């Protein structure tokens, strides 16, 4: 079964440093999502791409977070500078269709754990 690939799996960084996460969605999936999940809570959508275009980044803290999907395939999420409150799991996900929920399953990667010290 095809999977969403993410790296690194774990990252420890000092506050004020820059950190980046990479995601390779399932081949052929037009929609890519970045979520943030704090321990004990459900995932929170940060940004959603359809192909190379941003569809929704309303919850992305744009003063320090950026995301790109230049060729409409893989994607990078960057945090600069990192803050203590950014410690969380960052999940990448993808879905085949551009919109709609019926039968449009979202597939998640294993996540990237970030600890800011």
């Amino acid at each position: 079964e095809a999977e969403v690939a993410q790296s690194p799996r774990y990252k420890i960084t000092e506050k004020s440093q820059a950190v980046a996460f990479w995601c390779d969605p399932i081949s052929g999936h037009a929609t890519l999502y970045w979520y943030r999940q704090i321990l004990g809570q459900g995932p929170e959508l940060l940004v959603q791409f359809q192909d190379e275009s941003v569809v929704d980044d309303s919850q992305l803290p744009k003063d320090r977070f950026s995301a790109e999907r230049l060729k409409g395939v893989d994607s990078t999420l960057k945090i600069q500078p990192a803050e203590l409150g950014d410690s969380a799991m960052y999940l990448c996900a993808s879905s085949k269709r551009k919109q709609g929920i019926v039968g449009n399953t979202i597939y998640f990667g294993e996540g990237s754990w970030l600890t800011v010290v």
Partner: protein
Amino acid sequence: LAKTTQPISMDSYEGQEVNITCSHNNIATNDYITWYQQFPSQGPRFIIQGYKTKVTNEVASLFIPADRKSSTLSLPRVSLSDTAVYYCLVGETDSNYQLIWGAGTKLIIKP
């Protein structure tokens, strides 16, 4: 705010049937109900999706009453490996899939 309400946690035993109920009083006409499972340190995994009545797949069943204000995920004969967090979500058929996740239900299966 999440559009759903679930119990924070549940316990059961191996071999039992487990039913997790989700309340979604303000569900809209175009909303579908989707359940995900999440193990520690992993991303959520799709379990089942439905609109009304009953849906069954190889993993679970989903029961939705006529008023659609709640739904029940049924896991038959659970095992220790079913210990996980289960999320109930509602979303519009034509939206950009902007599901709002609650805290989910932490299910603990005991031997």
